[in-house]
C-alpha cells in the first residue's frame, strides 16, 4: 500500500499546522455566505427586497431562537426509531443476505496462492462491505423523505409540534442506526471470514538432522522448512521459515522418547504494525542533498539511488525513546525497498545494501550493517541496542538511545546500495521503525469505522438532498457527490489544470480540431483565445471550490491500512471523525433550511 504523507500527520498537526480547521471554517463560511445570498435572491424575486430579507433572517432567527432550543430528544428518538422501523420494513436486511452470500462464494474469486492472502481477503471483505453499506445508505436516505411527502404521512408529522431539526436529525440518526447495525454484523462476519480464510495447517513431511530440522507438507500453495532448538530449560522450540508473509510455531512433544511435531496456526499474517515514519532525504552522486533518480518507471513514487556511489537515502526520525520500542532492547526497523538492475550480474544473490545509524549531529555513527534486498515484502531487521560504531572517527561501542539519538530525540538511518551499477528504489514510507503492534481486531474495527463514517456522510448528503429533491433526483445528486468524492483528485487535476488540455470550453474546441493536449491552443485569434481561457478559469475555480466542499470519500477509506497490516493511527481516526462531524453539522443545517422553507403539503 501507499501511505500518503498527510496520513502521517498527527491530529493537532493537521488541525492547526496543516490548516484543517481553517479550511473547514472557510468552507463553512463560504457556504453560509453563498447560501444566504442565493436564498435572499430567490426570496427577493418572489417577495421583493425588504420582504425577502426579512424572510431569510426570520428563518435564521427561528433556528436559533425557537427550533434549536425547542428540539427534543424524545421526538428525535421517535422519528429515528420510525426511520429505523421503516428501513427494516423496506427489507434492508436483504443487504445482509447479499453480504453473506457474497462471502460464501468469495472463495471462487480469491486466489489462495496469492503472496499476501491476508491482504486479498481483507481488501475483499472491506471493499465489499463498503460498497454494500454505501449503496444502502444511498437508497435509505434519498427516498425516505420524498416518499413521506408523496404519501402525505409527513403531514401528520408536521402538524405535531415537530421541529424541522428533529425531522432531519431523526432521519439521519435512524438510518445511521440501521447502517451501524448492519455494518457491525458485516464487520463481525468479515473478521470471522478473514481469520478463518487465512487459517491453514501443515503437517510435518520430512525430518533431517535427527529431527532438528525438516520441512512441512505443501498446503495452500506453499510449504515451510523449520528448525528446532533446545532452549535453556531443555524444551524444544522452533518456528518455520517465513513463506507468504507468515510462520508457524513448531510444537514438539516427546512421546515414548520420540519427538512428535505439530505445527501451529499461521502467525504474522494479521498484524497491525505501528510504524514510526521519518522524513526522507536523498543525496546525489556527489553526496549532496537533493538526489534521487528515476530509472525509467512511469510511476514516480519511488526514487532510486545508485549502488557503490555517494548516493544514499537518509531518513530522520523524531521523538525516539526506548519506551516507544518495547523498552528499547532492540530497534526494530522495517524496509520494503525495490531493486533495479542495470545488468543481470549475480543472479543467485540479491542486490546488497547497507544500513548505517547516525546521530544527526554527525559525530556518532554505527557500523555498516549489510542486508540483501527483499522486494515487495517487508524485511524486518532488529538492530540491537548496543552495537559497534565510531565516535568522531574513533571505533567504539555505541548505544542507540544514548549515543545515536540526538538530544532532541532524533536519529538518522542511512541506506546505501553496495553493488555498482545496481539501484535501490524507495519512497518515504518504505522505511520505518516499528513501535510495536496493535491488535488486528482493533485495527479492523478502526477500518470499519472508516466505512461507517463514509456511510454517515452518504446518509447526511442523501437526507440533505431529499429535503428538496424528489427521491430519484436526490439519489443521482448524492451519487454524483459520491463519485466526485471518490474521484475528486481527477476532477481537481482537471480544475487546477494539472491535466493538460485546458478547461471545458478549450477541450471542447480541441476535440473537433483534433489538437493534441500538449500543443498550445491556436485559433489564430489572440483575444478570442484569452476570452476562452478566462471563462475556463472561472469555471475551473468554481469547480475547485465546489470540490473542496464535497467530502473526499476516498480519504476515509482506511481498508488499505488494515489489509497491509498497518495500524490506523488514532490521530487519523480522530481527524476523520472531526471531518464527519463537521459534514454532519453542515448537512443538517442545510437540510433544516430547506425543510423549513418548503411547503410540505404542496401537490
Amino acid at each position, binding site marked *: 500500500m501507499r501511505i500518503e504523507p498527510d496520513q502521517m500527520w498527527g491530529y493537532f498537526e493537521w488541525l492547526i499546522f496543516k490548516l484543517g480547521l481553517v479550511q473547514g471554517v472557510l468552507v463553512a463560511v463560504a457556504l453560509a455566505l453563498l447560501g444566504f445570498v442565493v436564498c435572499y435572491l430567490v426570496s427577493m424575486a418572489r417577495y421583493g427586497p425588504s420582504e425577502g430579507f426579512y424572510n431569510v433572517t426570520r428563518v435564521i432567527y427561528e433556528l436559533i431562537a425557537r427550533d434549536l432550543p425547542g428540539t427534543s430528544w424524545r421526538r428525535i428518538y421517535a422519528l429515528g426509531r420510525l426511520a429505523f422501523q421503516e428501513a427494516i420494513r423496506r427489507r434492508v436486511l436483504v443487504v445482509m443476505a447479499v453480504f453473506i452470500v457474497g462471502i460464501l462464494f468469495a472463495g471462487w*474469486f480469491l*486466489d489462495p*496462492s496469492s503472496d499476501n492472502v491476508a491482504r486479498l481477503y481483507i481488501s475483499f471483505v472491506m471493499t465489499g462491505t463498503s460498497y454494500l453499506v454505501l449503496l444502502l445508505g444511498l437508497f435509505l436516505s434519498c427516498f425516505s423523505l420524498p416518499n413521506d411527502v408523496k404519501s402525505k404521512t409527513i403531514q401528520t408529522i408536521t402538524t405535531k409540534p415537530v421541529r424541522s431539526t428533529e425531522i432531519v436529525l431523526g432521519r439521519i440518526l435512524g438510518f445511521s442506526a440501521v447502517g451501524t447495525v448492519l455494518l457491525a454484523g458485516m464487520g463481525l462476519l468479515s473478521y470471522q471470514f478473514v481469520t478463518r480464510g487465512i487459517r491453514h495447517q501443515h503437517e510435518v513431511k520430512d525430518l533431517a538432522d535427527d529431527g532438528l530440522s525438516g520441512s512441512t507438507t505443501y498446503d495452500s*500453495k506453499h510449504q515451510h522448512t523449520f528448525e528446532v532448538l533446545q532452549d535453556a530449560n531443555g524444551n524444544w522450540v522452533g518456528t518455520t521459515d517465513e513463506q507468504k508473509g507468515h510462520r508457524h510455531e513448531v510444537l514438539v512433544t516427546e512421546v515414548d522418547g520420540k519427538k512428535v511435531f505439530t505445527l501451529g496456526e499461521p502467525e504474522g499474517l494479521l498484524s497491525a504494525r505501528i510504524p514510526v515514519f521519518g522524513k526522507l532525504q536523498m543525496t546525489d552522486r556527489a553526496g549532496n542533498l537533493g538526489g534521487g533518480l528515476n530509472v525509467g518507471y512511469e510511476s514516480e*513514487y519511488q526514487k532510486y539511488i545508485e549502488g557503490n556511489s555517494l548516493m544514499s537515502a537518509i531518513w530522520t526520525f523524531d521523538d525516539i525513546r526506548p519506551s516507544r520500542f518495547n523498552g528499547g532492547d532492540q530497534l526494530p526497523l522495517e524496509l520494503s525497498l525495490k*531493486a533495479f538492475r542495470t545488468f543481470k550480474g549475480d543472479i*543467485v544473490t*540479491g542486490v546488497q545494501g547497507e544500513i548505517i545509524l547516525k546521530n544527526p549531529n554527525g559525530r556518532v555513527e554505527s557500523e555498516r550493517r549489510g542486508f540483501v534486498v527483499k522486494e*515487495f515484502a517487508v524485511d524486518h531487521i532488529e538492530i540491537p541496542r548496543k552495537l559497534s560504531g565510531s565516535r568522531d572517527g574513533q571505533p567504539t561501542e555505541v548505544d542507540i538511545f544514548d549515543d545515536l539519538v540526538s538530544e532532541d530525540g532524533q536519529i538518522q538511518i542511512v541506506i546505501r546500495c553496495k553493488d555498482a551499477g545496481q539501484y535501490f528504489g524507495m519512497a518515504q514510507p518504505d522505511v520505518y521503525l516499528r513501535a510495536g503492534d496493535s491488535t488486528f481486531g482493533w485495527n479492523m474495527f478502526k477500518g470499519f469505522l472508516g466505512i461507517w463514517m463514509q456511510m454517515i456522510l452518504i446518509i447526511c448528503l442523501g437526507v440533505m438532498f431529499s429535503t428538496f429533491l424528489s427521491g430519484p433526483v436526490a439519489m443521482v445528486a448524492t451519487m454524483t457527490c459520491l463519485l466526485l468524492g471518490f474521484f475528486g483528485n481527477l476532477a481537481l487535476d482537471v480544475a487546477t489544470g494539472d491535466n493538460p488540455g485546458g478547461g471545458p470550453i478549450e477541450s471542447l474546441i480541441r476535440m473537433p480540431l483534433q489538437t493534441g493536449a500538449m500543443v498550445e491552443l491556436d485559433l489564430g485569434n489572440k483575444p478570442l483565445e484569452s476570452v476562452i481561457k478566462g471563462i475556463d478559469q472561472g469555471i475551473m475555480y468554481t469547480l475547485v471550490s465546489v470540490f473542496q466542499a464535497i467530502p473526499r470519500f476516498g480519504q476515509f477509506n482506511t481498508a488499505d491500512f488494515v489489509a497491509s497490516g498497518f495500524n490506523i493511527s488514532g490521530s487519523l481516526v480522530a481527524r476523520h471523525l472531526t471531518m464527519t462531524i463537521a459534514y454532519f453539522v453542515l448537512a443538517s443545517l442545510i437540510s433544516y433550511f430547506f425543510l423549513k422553507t418548503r411547503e410540505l403539503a404542496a401537490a
Partner: protein
Amino acid sequence: MNIVVLRRRLFYICAMVVLLVPLYFLGSPSVRNKDGSVNQPGGTLAQIRTAYDLGQGDLGEIDPASESMRLATLGLRGVAATILWQKAEYYKKEQFWDRLSATLNQIAVLQPHFVEVWEFQSHNLSYNVSAEFDDYRQRYQWVKRGIDYLIKGSKYNKHRTEMPFELGHFFGSKMGVADEKKQFRALYRDDENFHKEVQEKTSMDLRQPDGLGPDRKPDNWLSGRLWYLKAYDMVDAGSAPAKSAMMFYLKGPQWLMKYAEAMQTEGTLDEPARYAWRTAGRDWQKFGERQIVTTFGDTIYLTELSRAQAEYAKIKEEFEAFCGDAFTKLRDQRIAQLSAEELAAWGKPEIERNIAEMIMGEKVDSYLAIDPKDIAKATPEDKRVDALQIAKRLETAQSKISHIEIYRNQINYAYWEARCEAEQIDEAILARTSMYEANQLLDKGELDAALQKYEVAWKAWSDLFNKFPAMMIDDSADDVLASVDRYRRLLDQPDLPPDFGLSGFLKFREIYEGELADPALMNVIGSWPKVFPDRNFLTEMLRKSGEGLEEMQPSEASIPSASSIEVSAPEGGKAPTPPAKDSSAAASADPPSASDATAAETNLEPNRSLAIETPADGAPPSPKK
C-alpha cells in the same frame, strides 16, 4: 373499452405474434444425441452457434462464478472488463502485483472466451511482472502465475489450441531460455507440487515418461513439448491450429532439440544426449513429411526438395529437347551480342575469375537466362501451344522448388536435420566427452592428461566438422572455441601448432563470425553433406574465401559481408563452386540457366548474397544444349 384502444391493442398482439413466428424458426435449438452429435440441426441461430462453437457448452466449462459475475454486470461485462483492464494497467504501472493478478482473474472471469486476453495477460505475468523481481525464486513464482493463468484459460476454452500452444511455449522457452535458465530449470525439475497441481487441474501428466529428463524428473522443454503434443491432438480432433501449419508443428520437434541442447549444456553428453537427438531427428523427419499449405497456395512437404529438383530437371530436359532449335538459336543470338572480354570472363572456371570477371560473368549469366516462355514463343507455330504448356509446367516445378526452399530456410530445416544426425555419431559423443573431460582435468590441474584429452577432442571435432559442417556454427562450437582458448593458454604459446587439427574451423569462424545465425548459411552448411557428399565444405569454403579475401578486401573490417547463401538447387548434384566471398562479387546469384531467375528472386538481399553455383566441375555455367 374504447374501440380505438381495443383495435390498437389487437394490432400490437397480432404484430407480436407475426414477429415471433420467424423468431421461433430461427431460434429453435438443436437436438443432440447422447454422444453430443447433432441430431436435428435446429434453427439458423442454433446452426450458426454450432458452426462457430459459440454455445457455452461447446466453448468449454460453464463456470458458476463467471456466469454470476456476468449477470451481476447486467450485460455490461464489456464495459466492466474495460474498466478492470485500465485498473490492471494502473496496478502494473504502480507495481501492485497482487492486485494486478487479482484483477486479471476478474477480467478473465468476465470474458472467459476472449482468448487473446488470456494470452496477453499470461505473458504479462510470466515475462513482464516476473522480471520486476530481483530474487529468481520470486521470478519463478510469477512465471508459474502466468502458467496458472493460461491453464485456467484452457479450461474455459477447451477447443482452442492457442492455450496448450502458449503453455508449451511458456514451459519451454520462458524457463529454458531466460538468463536464469539454469535456476529456473532446476526449480522446475524439483517442483513436485507444481507438477501435481497441473495434473489435478488439467489432467496433463507432466511426469509421464516422455516428459522426464535424464534424472527421471520432468524437464521443462519436454513438458513444453507435451503441451504441444496436446495441441496437435486437439487439431486431430477437429480444432483449428493456433499458428500456420509449419510454425505449429515445428515446435514439438524443436523443443526436443532444445532439450537435447540443454542437457548437453548441463553436462550430460553421452547416451541420453544421443537418444534425445535421435528422437528429435525422428520427429524432425516426421515434421518434414507433414503436408504444408503454403501462403502461395500450393502444398509442399519440406522433405521433398530433391524430388522436386529431379522433377524440374526432367521437365527442363523435356522442354529443351522439345524446343530444340528455338532454344539454341535464342541463346546463340545472345552470345553473339557479347563482347570478347565478356565471353572470355564467362568462359573461365569460376574459381579462376578475378572480381571484374566475376561481375562480368554474372551479367552474362543473367543475360543468357532466357525466360522459358520466350523460348516457347520462339518455337514454330505448330509446336508453340505444346511448348507453352511445358514452359508452364516448368515454371510450376520451379516455383515449387523455391517455395520449398523458402519454407525450409525459414526454419533452417536442413541445418537441424544435419544437427540431429551429427549429434548421434560416435565422433560427436567422443568430441564432446573428451573436451568436457579435458576441461575438467585442466580444472583439477592435471595438465598432461588434459593435453592428451584435448588432442583426442580436437581430432574428434575435426572429423565431426568434416562430416557435418553444420556443427561449426552452433553453440557447442562456441564451447569448442572457448576450450581451444584454454588449450592455447595451456600450451603457453602465442600460436597454435601448425598441424592443429581445427585451424580450418578457426579460420572459418573468424571469417563468418557475423553470419553464423544467418538462415542461408545454416541451410548451405546443413545440406552440404547431402548435396555434395564428396566435397569437403571447409576446404571449398576456405579456398574461395581466401581468394576473395586477398583479391578484394585487404582490410579485414568488411570481410564478413555475405548474408545469404544459396544453393542453386535446380542443377542439383553438380559439384559446387566455393562461394564468392565478396559482396560485390556476389552481387547477384549466378544463374546458370533461365530457371535461376526465380531462385534469384527469393534472394531477399541480392547485394549481400553469397552464391554457391553448381556448374559442373567448375566449368563456366552454361546452359545445356
